[in-house]
């Protein structure tokens, strides 16, 4: 994986973030004042900024930083996001998208526009309402839109259109017609040598030259020296090349834009001519352009080319930037189409590279997923078949039984192979991190070494894709806040060079990723104070060290004294936690003052299957995710203690743990079960704290395929999903956190989005 590939991933992520940003802003615009929406918008900009910083895209970083600062004001309720404010923000989002596109595809953006917006954003951050400058602005995008819309079909059609040359519509938009100050024309020397592909794609050199003639006064030299004898002539080969001197008051960009759709298929060199056209080394060949012209009217309009104004050049540049913007917009609306357009654009570059890469194929993920689903069905069906054969077969030695055993083996192998298609090593993600460490360390003036271990640990592709973002946040936090400055490290007798260690390993069917720094560890006193200042906890609350450490996962929490370019707005850790939870994972922190902190993430290897314990509750079969279970035990009557009106505690090795009757909470039975007759599953829930879940019996442990309940029904409180067991019946997968939250007296019907926050607050 080289740098470009890594960058490409960043740009793909930017695309998502920009979409998120826009939808969030639009929601705000519609009057949504949910703090989570503001947070989402803020995170999107923050993530773009972070990534851009790693790649040294300075324009993007500086703009995103200003944007972020203003959004922070909205987030902290200093700035009311009214219509006017949002107008500026939506425009800023557009500019941000432009900047991303410009960073990816090269080219520039309208500097005036971004600079104007920076000023407006800064004004907003200072608490000033949008002024006249803002009201004047909207005219521009509105005016620019039709032009962009007109240009729309061109990029998609032109390169592949074999019906003939597609006129470039937007070059004419630049010809405003105002005749004001005259700029001294410059002479450009254009070297144009078409390749055979140019003709093969239906472009025509003569028509390109005609278009070029519209840019300014020109003289053409045709080099025919490459033309072979007639009998050796290949009719499809390109033999001619041209040297053109163009006298125009437009810039190089305008000249290049004439060749826009042909530039991959020709050698094009545009430079300011040092000498005048007469000095060209070749014999001028008379070239009658008017013979090609079927509509003279178009040319008439260009007679005034010398009178073109500076403004025209600017507007042409703007048109060009609109095209890039349009490309971005098209990407959002019609992803497929833009992909093909982008593919066409990259085709020339990729053509060479493609030859060497024949070892792998790219397969649409949907196809793989369908295969995985089908194999899941196959496994279930096979289990059902075996079961019924066993029930009906008394001898037990029939050929059917042997065949079935082989079938079982085969299906298991198929399942493993299919899962392996999606499994990929975490290496690419780890590699991205090393650069982030370097960059961030440089920026904050620290010297830090990243040690990675277990890069070849394989995990499902979806997990890898979603891992990058939280990991980036954590690495940045570790470098920026975790590791002390070299001076401080030396003062405390440590190696001035800090170490960040990133490890991946498989552990009991999950992937465990550990991020360890040898920094100062969490300053619990400051974390606690900060939480009190931010109204996250009560001033007199009594928290354990672990609970204090966990406070850093709360939204809006930051211990950094100053806001930096890198991290420290407290968006990091709550995002991390949320992303990890969304993947069905858990994150924990352990920190020792003076010796550093360790973040441990435990994630499922795949999102399609789950290791579960199959249990019986009130006659119903349930699956409890194995990851939630700490231990199972058979309660004795002497260990059960009543507590209050209807609570019961179980004593486990001299500590007391609340008993949660799953059957009662899920409404499967009306009365409390007798704990002595059942089994207790000791589970650890979000926000720490253990609970003993009471079930009637344990049937066994099994890997199950996760099925959605929402597809045909709706979300069921207390239930995470469904699965199908070997007997073909549906079993429900328990949502342990929801059940534990319900046992704390919260309603099971609560919106699941609020759940994790609430349970955290309950411990705080």
């Amino acid at each position, binding site marked *: 994986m080289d740098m470009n590939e890594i960058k490409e991933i960043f740009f793909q992520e930017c695309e998502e973030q920009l979409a998120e940003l826009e939808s969030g802003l639009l929601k705000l615009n519609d009057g949504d004042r949910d703090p989570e929406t503001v947070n989402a918008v803020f995170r999107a900009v923050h993530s773009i900024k972070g990534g851009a910083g790693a790649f040294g895209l300075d324009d993007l970083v500086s703009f995103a930083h200003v944007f972020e600062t203003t959004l922070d004001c909205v987030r902290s309720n200093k700035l009311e996001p009214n219509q006017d404010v949002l107008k500026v923000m939506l425009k800023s989002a557009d500019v941000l998208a432009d900047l991303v596109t410009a960073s990816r595809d090269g080219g520039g953006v309208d500097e005036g526009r971004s600079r104007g917006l920076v000023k407006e954003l800064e004004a907003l951050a200072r608490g000033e309402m949008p002024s006249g400058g803002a009201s004047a602005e909207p005219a521009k995008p509105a005016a620019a839109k039709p032009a962009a819309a007109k240009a729309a079909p061109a990029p998609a059609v032109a390169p592949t259109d074999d019906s003939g040359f597609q006129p470039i519509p937007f070059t004419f938009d630049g010809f405003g017609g105002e005749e004001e100050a005259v700029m001294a024309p410059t002479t450009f020397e254009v070297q144009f040598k078409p390749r055979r592909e140019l003709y093969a794609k239906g472009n025509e050199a003569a028509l390109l030259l005609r278009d070029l003639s519209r840019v300014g006064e020109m003289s053409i030299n045709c080099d025919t020296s490459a033309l072979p004898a007639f009998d050796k002539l290949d009719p499809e080969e390109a033999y001619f090349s041209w040297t053109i001197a163009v006298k125009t008051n437009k810039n190089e960009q305008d000249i290049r834009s004439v060749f826009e759709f042909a530039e991959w298929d020709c050698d094009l060199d545009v430079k300011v001519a040092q000498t005048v056209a007469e000095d060209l080394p070749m014999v001028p060949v008379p070239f009658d352009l008017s013979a090609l012209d079927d509509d003279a009217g178009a040319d008439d309009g260009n007679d005034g080319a010398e009178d073109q104004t500076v403004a025209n050049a600017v507007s042409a540049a703007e048109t060009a930037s609109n095209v890039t913007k349009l490309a971005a917009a098209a990407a959002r609306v019609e992803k497929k189409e833009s992909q093909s357009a982008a593919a066409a654009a990259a085709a020339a570059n990729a053509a060479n590279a493609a030859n060497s890469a024949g070892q792998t194929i790219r397969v649409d993920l949907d196809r793989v997923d369908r295969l995985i689903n089908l194999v899941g*069905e196959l496994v279930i069906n096979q289990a059902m078949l075996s079961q019924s054969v066993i029930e009906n077969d008394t001898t037990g030695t029939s050929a059917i039984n042997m065949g079935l055993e082989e079938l079982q083996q085969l299906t298991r192998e198929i399942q493993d192979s299919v899962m392996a298609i999606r499994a990929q090593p975490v290496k690419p993600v780890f590699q991205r991190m090393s650069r982030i460490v370097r960059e961030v360390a440089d920026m904050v003036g620290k010297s830090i070494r990243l040690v990675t271990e277990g890069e070849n640990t394989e995990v499902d592709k979806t997990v890898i894709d979603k891992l990058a973002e939280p990991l980036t946040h954590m690495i940045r936090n570790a470098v920026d806040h975790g590791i002390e400055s070299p001076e401080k490290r030396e003062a405390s007798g440590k190696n001035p060079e800090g170490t960040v260690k990133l490890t991946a390993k498989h552990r009991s069917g999950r992937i465990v990723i550990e991020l360890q720094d040898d920094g100062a560890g969490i300053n619990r006193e400051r974390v606690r104070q900060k939480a009190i200042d931010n109204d996250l906890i009560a001033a007199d609350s009594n928290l354990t060290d672990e609970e204090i450490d966990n406070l850093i996962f709360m939204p809006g929490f930051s211990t950094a004294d100053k806001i930096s370019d890198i991290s420290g707005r407290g968006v990091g850790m709550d995002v991390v936690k949320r992303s990890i939870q969304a993947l069905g994972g858990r994150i924990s922190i352990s920190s020792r003052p003076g010796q550093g902190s360790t973040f441990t993430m435990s994630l499922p290897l795949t999102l399609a299957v789950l290791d579960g314990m199959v249990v019986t509750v009130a006659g119903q079969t349930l699956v409890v995710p194995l990851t939630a279970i700490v231990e199972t035990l058979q309660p004795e009557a002497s260990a059960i203690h009543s507590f209050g009106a209807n609570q019961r505690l179980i004593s486990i090795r001299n500590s007391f743990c609340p008993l949660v009757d799953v059957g009662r909470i899920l*409404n499967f039975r009306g009365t409390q079960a007798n704990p002595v007759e059942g089994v207790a599953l000791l589970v650890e829930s979000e926000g720490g704290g253990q609970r003993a879940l009471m079930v009637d019996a344990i049937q066994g442990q099994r890997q199950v395929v996760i099925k*959605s*309940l929402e597809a045909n*029904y*709706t979300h069921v409180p207390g239930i995470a999903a469904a699965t*199908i067991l070997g007997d073909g*019946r*549906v079993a429900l997968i328990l949502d342990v956190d929801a059940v534990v939250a319900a046992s704390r007296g919260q309603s099971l*019907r609560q919106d699941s989005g609020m759940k994790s926050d609430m349970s955290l607050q309950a411990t705080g």
Partner: protein
Amino acid sequence: MSYAGKNLVQGSRELIAFRIGDQEFCVNIMSVREIRGWTKATALPHSPSYVMGVINLRGAVLPIIDLSARLGMRKAEPTQRHVFIVAQVKKRVVGLLVEAVSDILTVTDENIQPVPEVSSELEKQYARGILAIDKRMICLIELDALIPDTESEAA
């Protein structure tokens, strides 16, 4: 009554008739995917009384609705002879528990009589017309009205 009026402008149609208790009902055949024999459903916690649970339909999780309870009659006591009508309702696929499928009817709109004015809310909500066939009375019901858009009441 607006639905009965609307029906009059349409041509002939096919309906599937089925029995619940001593009453007969029918639904538009276009919404029916298949008929399946009864299997035991897995109960869902905190579900409305008419949701019997979920079954496995070739790998998909299919909610089962006790049509008898849904229509306000007493809860069904399912036996092996009961069947599920697997129907597409809007974007969801659900199984409807009925006693037996009795007939496939081809009717024109003239055959469909308006629902008489009765006090029962349920009839007003789901019934779209009444058919008289061979001295039997068959009630045409609208499935879309049975299963609300957002299953908020079920949640």
